[in-house]
């Protein structure tokens, strides 16, 4: 997993609420057995017509948002399915950070496993960031994970909170499985104890 430290990039405004995982990556693209290559199909049915032509007024089809690295989204981003193809598609497109008032639980977890930082901000801050994102190419937003701040192009800075363990993993690009396997002895003794307490499992 790539580290996430400090990101300076273009933010795309997507004010729609309840952007679900089926919108982010429709089911026909879940048939892959790989993690990569999904970026071209990110938001496929919002982004392309049935014939594959770009839909001109979709935000990621417009300059400068074709190069967006941040999405500012409406409430409850990522609701729906557990498909990790959603963060894989975002990452493959180049998105490293999504900011919203709320995220669906499984999507939120999945982001951290892929070096994407989901940030929860109150409505009034999301409103400010949404306006800043609408300014376009000259409005670079800065996301600083170490300092836990998001800064707009005109220098307003907003603090955010993040789970310390997840922050540590993102900053260092750490693999969860490796960390957990260091606790193999604890897992062994849990299993031994569970075998006597709940032998039917």
């Amino acid at each position, binding site marked *: 997993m790539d580290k996430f430290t400090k990101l300076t990039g273009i933010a795309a405004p997507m004010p729609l609420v*309840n952007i679900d995982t089926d919108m982010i990556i429709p*089911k026909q693209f879940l048939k892959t057995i790989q993690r990569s290559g999904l970026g071209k199909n990110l938001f496929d049915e919002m982004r392309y017509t049935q014939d594959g032509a770009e839909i001109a007024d979709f935000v990621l089809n417009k300059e400068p948002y074709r190069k967006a690295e941040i999405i500012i989204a409406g409430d409850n981003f990522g609701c729906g399915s557990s498909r990790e193809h959603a963060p894989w598609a975002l990452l493959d497109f180049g998105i490293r950070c999504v900011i919203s008032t709320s995220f669906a639980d*499984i999507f939120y977890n999945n982001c951290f496993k892929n070096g994407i930082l989901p940030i929860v901000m109150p409505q009034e801050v999301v409103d400010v960031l949404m306006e800043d994102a609408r300014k376009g190419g000259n409005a670079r937003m800065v996301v600083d994970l170490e300092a836990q701040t998001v800064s707009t192009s005109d220098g307003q800075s907003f603090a955010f909170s993040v789970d310390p363990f997840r922050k540590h993993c993102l900053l260092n690009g750490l693999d969860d499985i490796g960390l957990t396997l260091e606790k193999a002895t604890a897992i062994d003794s849990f299993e031994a104890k569970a075998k006597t307490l709940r032998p039917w499992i």
Partner: protein
Amino acid sequence: MTAPRTLYDKIWDDHVVHQAEDGTCLLYIDRHLVHEVTSPQAFEGLRMTGRKVRAPEKTIAVPDHNVPTTLDRAKGIENEESRIQVEALDKNAKDFGVNYYPVSDVRQGIVHIVGPEQGWTLPGMTVVCGDSHTATHGAFGALAHGIGTSEVEHVLATQTLIQKKSKNMKVEVTGKLRPGVTAKDITLAVIGKTGTAGGTGYVIEYCGEAIRDLSMEGRMTVCNMAIEGGARAGLIAPDEKTFAYCMGRPHAPKGAAWEAAVSYWKTLFTDEGAHFDKVITLKGEEIEPVVTWGTSPEDVLPISGVVPSPEDFTGGKVEAARRSLEYMGLTPGQKLTDIKIDTVFIGSCTNGRIEDLRAAAAILKGKKVAPGMRAMVVPGSGLVRAQAEEEGLAQIFIDAGFEWRLAGCSMCLAMNPDQLSPGERCASTSNRNFEGRQGRNGRTHLVSPGMAAAAAITGYLTDVRELMAETV
């Protein structure tokens, strides 16, 4: 004396392997269910790092999303990508030695129907699967939730998950349901009340007389859609109905082990005075048969209602409602019962169990589907299908003009050939009415099995109670 605990607290406490200072826990996983869509990258990850599946005996795999449900499926999967994905699961199950129900096995079906049916899911367990509808298993008083593929790999390698505890939420449904009102109407009504993000950060415990009165099948329907309300999991405390359902299942304990298990399961309830961070109450007798009008499961109305206007909402929902109405091709003020239906789909992990098929067949008996109606029943598993044939339900469906299919996820998410065409409008017993969910530009109305059967007969969204009156 320990403080009073909720059911969720108790199951959680019994599965903590390690707790860090910041509260991050390593939680032990008793059952890991696996399907073909969210697992190939996880098995590949194990291969690349030379890791093994830690507990193959606690891992159960079954292909369901991509499998064809037509009667000729023995000839293989036509779509190459779908075929490769199912073949990858065949190979991974064999290479890593996990329990497996291949497409050719009569026990194959939707993973959330197979798990309980085979007795893999039992009260007090932790159950995960790379699928959001894992919440279904909460009906047994098991802590069950969906995970992403990275976490699938984590569970395969370590039989644990890194977790932070959620908050406790109680959803109480008091009193009795009225005739024609089902578990599906309860779960949709709850989401209509809380919204799709109302459960975010919580584990829900469903309780109250209307919940206790439900069969295990109905309880699975309720918990199945906990995720649609944003909750990590839904739970219902186990009782005699739960034990009766589990008894004698192939992987349920037997003899002395059964007795020991039941005495442990009887401790799985929320203690008097335990704290809930949020409480929602619904009156069972006030719930009507419901349908969804929009493209979010929170867009719920009683069948007696009319299509809302975007101005009925506030904030971001105004624009979302406008978009939904345009997508769904509906006009504000239109009566829901005036909405014409092209297709009816009965099946899915929400409503693909035997009781669901019985409910639909009761309405369809001796009737025909409306002219031009495309109607299909996809049983949740091969065993549900066999039982429905034995009970004579299959013949009722066939005589009414339904296609009688083999088991799989089918048109719930349309990864196999069962899809809606652009503009095609479907009354569906599945769980999501998202844009494009059942096929690009397809239009989905979520309903109960009885309501789906009623729509099939009349060709319009219909109050099932009108057809029930005819049969009485």
